[in-house]
């Protein structure tokens, strides 16, 4: 069973998400059957070696300074040409904004199926097919999906659904560099004009800790209380739909069905009742803390630590436990 995965890079570094995909591949097949594919404007040599030592059989690299991630079609053509040569049975990508754009584009070019945002992958023993498990309908159910006849069997995988692959030895897999054909670059293709890194407190996707506020925060000025707790414990700040619809935080802070899905180590829900639409975006957090006055609030069903009380009384006390210097 040949498995390949698309290893995303950011600023010349291989992302943690790529090492998670490698970890998934290692649960599915033997190391020599695993190929990493990188398509990147630049990646450091030590980065490639780290990947090569972490249990991949081959590392295939398209590195070209002209590559721009806005040009999905070009990336998809390279993925297709890679698959035509390597013929992987399984192809995994990260369920990031980029991965969830590139993979459907490439799946259509290759006329194959794709399962979005999987949280679990395994091989069905009797058929050898990839079983792709994903939450559906706001996380109320999980669906197990397979791609019986089309190849590759493609899936995007939710970040943080497995620990990153660690180095397994000193000698790495062979690194094969391939050139991007000039003909693929087109003058009219989409371009990235600017890319500005979000401040740590606004970056929800990679956040290990998130403090989220709901209607119980009552007014815009009170958001500061959540922000203070967040900065003391090194967390990003998110919100429910009601809060962003009122303009108390930007839309990009929304967690849930029409917003972001997050998987932090700790999710702290302040004044959030726990509507299904919100739970859909955070219920796979590793630990959930909820503070709410209503003991019947559904959020408590999902919480590891439920604090029934007034958040304006509780949160200042929680903040007291962490000095401004402590991370």
């Amino acid at each position, binding site marked *: 069973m040949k498995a390949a995965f698309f290893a995303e890079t950011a600023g010349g570094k291989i992302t943690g998400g790529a090492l998670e995909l490698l970890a998934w591949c290692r649960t599915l097949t033997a190391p020599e059957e695993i190929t990493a594919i990188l398509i990147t404007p630049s990646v450091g040599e030590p980065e490639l070696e780290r990947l090569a030592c972490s249990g991949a059989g081959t590392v295939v690299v398209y590195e070209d300074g002209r590559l721009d991630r*806005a040009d*999905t*079609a070009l990336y998809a053509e390279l993925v297709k040409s890679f698959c035509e040569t390597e013929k992987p049975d399984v192809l995994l990508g990260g369920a*990031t904004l*980029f991965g*969830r754009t590139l993979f*459907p*584009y490439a*799946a*259509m070019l290759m006329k194959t*199926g*794709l*399962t979005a945002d999987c949280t679990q992958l395994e091989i069905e023993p009797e058929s050898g097919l990839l079983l792709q498990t994903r*939450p559906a*309908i*706001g*996380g*109320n*159910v*999980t*669906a*197990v*999906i*397979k*791609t019986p006849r*089309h190849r590759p069997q493609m899936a995007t995988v939710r970040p943080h659904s497995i620990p990153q692959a660690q180095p397994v030895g000193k000698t790495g897999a062979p690194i094969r560099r391939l050139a991007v054909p000039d003909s693929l670059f087109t003058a009219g*293709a*989409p*371009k*990235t*004009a600017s*890319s*500005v890194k979000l401040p740590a407190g606004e*970056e929800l*996707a*990679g956040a*290990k800790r998130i403090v989220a506020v709901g209607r119980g925060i009552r007014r815009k000025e009170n958001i500061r209380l959540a922000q203070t707790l967040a900065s003391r414990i090194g967390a990003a700040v998110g919100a429910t739909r009601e809060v*962003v619809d009122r303009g108390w935080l930007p*839309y*990009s802070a929304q967690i849930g069905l029409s917003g972001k899905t997050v998987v932090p*180590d700790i999710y702290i829900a302040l004044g959030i009742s726990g509507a299904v639409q919100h739970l859909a975006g955070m*219920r796979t957090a590793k630990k*959930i*803390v909820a503070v709410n006055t209503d*003991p019947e609030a559904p959020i408590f*069903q*999902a*919480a*590891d*630590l*439920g*604090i*029934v*009380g007034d958040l304006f*009384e*509780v949160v200042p*006390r*929680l903040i*007291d*436990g962490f000095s401004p210097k402590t991370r």
Partner: protein
Amino acid sequence: MKIAVLLKQVPDSQAVRLDPETGTLRRSETDAVTNPLDLCALAAAVRLIKDVPDSSLTAICMGPSTGEQTLRQALALGAGRAILICDRACAGSDSYVTALILAAAIERSGPFDLVLTGLRASDGETGQVGPEIAAKLGWPVITGAESLTRIRDNLFEVTRSAESEKETLTFRTPALISVAKGIGQADLPRLERKIWARREPVTLLTANDLGFSPDEAGLKASPTRVVRVLHPQLTRRGRMVRITDSAALEQAREAFTDLLGRKEEE
């Protein structure tokens, strides 16, 4: 400027059921609404064509006959033409086949400069159909637009939030753009427009009209199969602390610090 907006009708209620046989969504049992992000796409399209002469805005929906409600809403909000792709043969289509059918409808009812849709639907949440259509049409795609501005001629600018960056991108039409909530919501329709929208004809297309035989659409033609559906146990049965006095408050603080501290060591 000729724009098509793709809208999906989604279940409103949380009590959605899955067909235990096929594992696909069973829609008829719940009230249906228009996918909120698709309405954002429609609103963006309405703003784009406002000041451009000779523009047109076509709303396209694929689904059961109740999709007509979604299209009448789109007409009331500013679409000039409505197309419903409705055919039993399309039932159970996965994102790949849905994209093939919608791409065919776009080619048949176009040409269009822009196709807009929501970043994802609130039921299936795959967000795959947009990029798959773009690939089928051979067009560029940009997902998650939070603003969409015409710079000049066929050159446009988009801003969006990726996981850790705010990005500004430029693209040329034709293109398919999916939008996130930050792009803005639709205004309420005016009464006279609503009355007009009630009577305006909706074009009905079948799979056959679009060149698909019954075997080429629906579940049968879909590369992916739902093999089973699980109902995960969601209750965590965590520790509860009721804040009744200062001792309870101290307990809550300790439990909270413990939880954070434990994670730190791992």
